[in-house]
């Protein structure tokens, strides 16, 4: 019976008496685990600190360079469409098929649907940064510093929208972000409305910069060395404004704004504001530097080059290319070849121009020329002699070409004078952001790019909207979807 007693002592409830409180204690405990890997968006949208806002402002430099110098970025793809370059990457024949034959497909994120999402990520960051600046107390950031930050953010916002408009053109773009990212998408506005908004942002920024102190409260990379104070940054702001004016054919305004820009025939043509790239940890490399002979130059760059007095081709062609031992063909065996490699970006940390002195001089020439109309019906109403001064300056100093004498210039038609200007823009700004495609499109000359190409080739007028943008809208935009 001893055994029996011992067993009775072990009545099950004793164990449950221990188990139940343990369960009760452990139930409904919080199991909070923070995000170990990233700061949360609340750090900007809640009650931000000055250091978080400064980090957000500096983040705009990181955003701005994205999608510019990568393999499928804006310089490379717009270069392909504008017949400045090829990409013969065997892994992806769409660099040939979609960009040269077409049509651009909004369903492929890296091609027809490209150059959109990264720009709106930047716009979101610009919105967050501007909001953050507004939320800071004056004791956290002085009013003059806030004004400087606002002037900077709005200028970058305008540049961002201009890049968007360059790819979408007549399709239009959204110029704002919805404060709630999960809310209704912002409206798509027309090309002219977008230009108006870009101009407004630049002018707003101009007045903000006027209220700023003698320096910015945030750090700037070396590409902004000529614009690293509110006063000098205004020169960059006005340079962008002048480009917008020329695109809008507001030539008088362009000439005014160029005066306030950093245009200076006394300084180097390469003086300007640049996107920076790097190879260190957390940096982004410039993929336009490429030794695999995949991203190469369009052969027309050689055949169209004017000759110097010595008989040598345009110095810009010589400086920017290198002849390969064997021609490289497209891997899809469509039958296009090139034996010209680029030397324009000599290392993975080479900067890419945003806007430079050489372009400003040519913008002044373009504004002075004052052309309008489309190919075959171009008429120019400006001061063509003033334009010739700048064109000759670039011909001689950049191309090593002979100056065009006044008599010969006078004998040219309006369209021939415009073609001479566009020739110089093409050779001076070659592979720096799709200038050729944009400029030729502005004057209705895209058909000229097809000379000598296979019959199946076309030149895209503009990019469609990405399919996600169309899908997310109850009523998709009238065109571009």
């Amino acid at each position, binding site marked *: 019976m001893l055994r*029996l007693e011992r067993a009775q002592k072990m*009545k099950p409830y004793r164990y449950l008496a221990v188990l139940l409180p343990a369960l009760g204690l452990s139930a409904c405990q919080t199991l909070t685990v923070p*995000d170990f890997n990233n700061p949360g968006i609340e750090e900007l949208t809640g009650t931000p600190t000055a250091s978080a806002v400064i980090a957000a402002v500096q983040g705009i430099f990181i955003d701005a*360079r994205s999608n510019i110098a990568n393999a499928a970025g804006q310089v490379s793809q717009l270069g392909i469409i504008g017949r400045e370059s090829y990409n013969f990457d065997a892994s992806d024949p769409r660099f040939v098929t979609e960009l040269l034959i077409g049509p651009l497909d909004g369903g492929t994120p890296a091609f027809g649907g490209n150059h959109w999402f990264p720009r709106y990520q930047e716009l979101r960051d610009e919105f967050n940064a501007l909001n953050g600046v507004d939320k800071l107390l004056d004791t956290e950031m002085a009013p003059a510093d806030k004004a400087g930050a606002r002037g900077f953010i709005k200028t970058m916002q305008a540049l961002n929208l201009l890049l968007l408009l360059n790819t979408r053109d007549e399709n239009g773009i959204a110029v704002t972000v919805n404060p709630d990212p999960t809310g209704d998408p912002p409206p798509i506005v027309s090309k002219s409305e977008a230009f108006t908004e870009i101009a407004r942002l630049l002018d707003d920024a101009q007045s903000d910069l006027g209220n700023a102190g003698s320096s910015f409260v945030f750090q700037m990379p070396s590409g902004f060395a000529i614009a690293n104070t509110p006063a000098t940054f205004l020169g960059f702001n006005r340079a962008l404004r002048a480009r917008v004016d020329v695109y809008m054919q507001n030539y008088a305004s362009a000439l005014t704004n160029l005066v306030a820009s950093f245009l200076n025939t006394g300084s180097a043509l390469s003086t300007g504001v640049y996107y920076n790239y790097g190879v260190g940890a957390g940096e982004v490399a410039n993929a336009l530097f490429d030794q*695999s002979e995949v991203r190469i130059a369009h052969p027309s760059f050689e055949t169209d080059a004017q000759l110097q007095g010595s008989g040598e081709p345009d110095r810009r062609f010589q400086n920017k290319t290198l002849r390969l031992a064997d021609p490289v063909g497209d891997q899809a065996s469509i039958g296009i070849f090139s034996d010209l490699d680029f030397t324009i970006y000599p290392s993975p940390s080479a900067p890419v121009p945003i806007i430079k002195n050489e372009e400003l001089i040519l913008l002044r020439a373009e504004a002075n020329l004052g052309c309008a109309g489309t190919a075959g019906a171009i008429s120019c109403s400006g001061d063509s002699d003033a334009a010739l001064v700048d064109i000759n300056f670039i011909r001689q100093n950049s191309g090593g070409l002979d100056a065009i004498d006044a008599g010969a210039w006078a004998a040219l038609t309006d369209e021939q004078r415009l073609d001479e200007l566009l020739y110089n823009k093409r050779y001076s700004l070659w592979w720096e952001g799709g200038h050729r495609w944009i400029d030729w499109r502005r004057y209705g000359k895209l058909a000229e790019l097809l000379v000598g190409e296979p019959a199946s080739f076309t030149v895209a007028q503009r990019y469609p909207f990405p399919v996600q943008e169309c899908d997310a809208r109850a009523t998709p935009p009238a065109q571009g979807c």
Partner: protein
Amino acid sequence: MKSRFVLLLALLVGLGATSLEAQTRVLSGRVTDALTGEPVVGAEVTVPNTAIRTFVNDDGSFTLGVPTGAVQVLIRRIGYKRYLLTVPAGQNNVTAELERDVLQLEEVVITGVATGVSRQNLANAVGTISGEDVAEVTSQSVEHAIAGKVAGVDIQQNSGAPGGGVQVRLRGTTSINATAQPLWVVDGVLMSDVAIPSNQNAVTAATGGNNPSLTQDGQVNRIADLNPEDIESIEILKGASASAIYGSKASNGVIIVRTRRGRAGPPRFNVSQRFGTFDLSNKLGSRTFEDAAELDGLFGAGTAASVGFTPGVSFDHEEQLAGRNALSSETSFNLSGGDEDTQYFLSGLWQDDAGIMENTGFEKQSLRFNVDQNVGERIRGSLSTNIVHSLAQRGLQNNDNAGVSPYMVFPFTANVVDLSRRPDGTYPTNPFERSNPIQTLGLMQNDEDVWRFTTSGRLEFTAARTNTSELRLIGLAGADYFQQQNELFFPAELQFEDDDGFPGTSLLGNSDNLNINVNGSAVFTFAPTSGAATFTTSAGIQYETRDLNISRVVSRGLTAGQPNIDAGTNVAVNEDRQRVEDLGFFLQEEVLTLNDRLLLTAGFRADQSSANADDTKLYFFPKFSGSYRIPVGGVLDDVKFRAAYGESGNQPLFGQKFTPLDATFNIEGIPGIIVPPSTIFAIVGSPGLKPERQREIEGGMDISFYGGRATFELTLYQKTISDLLLTRRLAPTSGFANELINAGELRTRGAEVSLALVPAQSADFNWVFRTNFFLSRSKVTNLPVPTFIPSSSGFGIGLGTIRIEENKSPTQIVGNTGFDASGNPIEATVGDVNPDFKWSFTNDVTYKNVNLYFLFDWQKGSDALNLTQLLYDIGSLSADFETAGSTRRANGPLVGAGDTRIYVQDLSFLKLREVTLSWRLPDEAVANFWGALRNVRLFAQARNLITIADYPGVDPEVSNFGNQPSGRNIDVAPFPPSRSFWFGLDLGF
């Protein structure tokens, strides 16, 4: 919840007194096989409802101290039917002849966290595989050894690369964005099956194109570390109706693995030695050039001259790359034994598989020690420990954008040049592309080195026992830790290495994973003396943490070719930390009644987790099931009808509830914070994020015939998965890519049929035949967000992609069928990844000492996107280019008319997965040769010996994106498949 426990308490307090009677007489006996008369060594002999227990010795005898009166004795051994006899008071000697239970009708299947049910009463179609079946043919990862053995279990390897990377899909599609892998429970521990990418993307730039996801790295899911030869049994809970008790991690099913344990008896030592080789089993071939004009026509004038083309001479680049047949070997041993109180099992493995390419292969070393110890009559402690080292050398595979992955290079490399290693050790430059794959594989290194330690301790305490009831308290604690190191080295001599201006690349990834589990459960069984019913009540609590920390370094521009990461001139680092804490409670009641013919079960699980947005909220997952066996006369033994309902969940992943910003970028050292610049990470987390919920109902019928010599099982099921973790695509103008929300509904229906027969059973000739047939169909029944393309599921609609649409299959492939008059692509469903059905056949035939075993696995339907063939056609180098490839090219996407369907191809296949022929030496001969030897077996075996498929890719099992719920079967430059042949010897001492 507490009220349930009060109820339980009331039940338990009503317990009667215990009645452990004195053991005063010794019963001795002999247990033999009814068919052969040989001793059934290791059979367990017990007196039911007592702790009295012993095991049968080598000669078939046993002795057992039993009470004086009449007593029931139960004799059990896996593979034999239970033998219950009543021994009268005066009888002290018994003999028992056990009948074989070839189809394992009587095995106990683990259905709860701590309880099991005899297979013949089971209310769910739980798949079980014995350790012997798992170890039929050697495999690198345990999933290979499951393929074709259980209905409803779809196993597909992602490529032929050595070391694993296998998707297990239990009963069709169960999610879209959450994890796709089942939960693995090994000896009670949740064993991590994460797949950690090697970061080879830093070289292949696979994400540089359309798809920014490291899933193209060809990663290995880590269950590959389990040694298949250590497995005693595998039980597969295929859906929520069976797995509800595992709660919010069980939506993809649960695979319960028990490892082998010692048995009382003299020490037994088994050693096995295998030698074999791996052999490239399929090649694509390449276009042959007749003359220089043909070559020049394709590659430009002068090509033939500059590459040194000789008409009639061609080089088989695939053979040069993957034609290696190096010697592979595997040595394993185990030692087991013990007495009635202590049993031990010790095993070791040394596996060294040479891959078909240079610098590829797989090594695994494993040491396991399992010990069980009784402390008195009431306490049983068990310890399981396993230390494993594995080294997978994976080569280079899958999509890339840098011209380095071998099957991305071959489509553009004419076979007119010799790419093989020169006698001086150097390699020729590939004149057609950026790299020479034979050089790349010859000089590179891609090592995945894993050390893993898994241990669990279990303490079972029989707190109270009477002749009608028993209370067991079970505590279990376990840890699963592994460290994975990925070392990839691409020396500067590689043809492609200076393309980026930084010759030489070294990648280092270090990952640590620690899973800790603590469970406590109580099991109360009550069986009134009337025998009317048995009640089993179980309740418990489970706490678990999972920590994963991955850090990666990419180092480029290696000074003087030094592989150390600090020798690079361009170094990038990355860290990712994850932690999930889970707490769960469960309660379950089982009633077995009506002469053990009716089984009813009800229970629930309540889970809270740090991965949910509200980490204090409990989510409840109920289950109910019932089965009834109808006794039938004649050839039918009995017919069982069963039905089960259950719910389970699929947790959000770590971090999905947050809206993160990115602080890892800088510009010239100036830091900034930005919205993550990637479509993968720019996600807005929903404030209400919770687990997906699966509701499954299954019903079926099991029939057993001819005294257990034939069984037939039919199961129908329907799963409804709601609160899907959906990524709602945000307009790109928001600056974010997706918002993660719970919404929508997915339905999966399916059928499973299994038939097992023992056509012959005699002392000399035994034949067991099994066949498993299953199919499933899924449909997105509700999608409140716009149609979307899940991540890692293709490269845009033009090339074909998986797309989620309401009222369509979640695995449909959408593509273009051409362009309309205005030049817009016409979209259509062009295929489906999900197979029409799978059907497997196993035969196991023994004649005297010779055994032949083989397993055929048949898949019908299932479409692939064969982008590898597209690449060959674009390069105009497909083997059939002149007869068919040029037409495909002209009609297909990218360079042709844009018809995606050209490359959507049928993956139907028939594979001879496993075949073994073995000869067991006659026992007398063995004994005469050496007295210590118990048995000797010689065998020859092969895995994936024959593949019959119309599919023109290298292998019909392929997945560029690895394990994915829906984005599978995308064929982009996979690692080619191999078959393996083995010869070996088993010795038993």
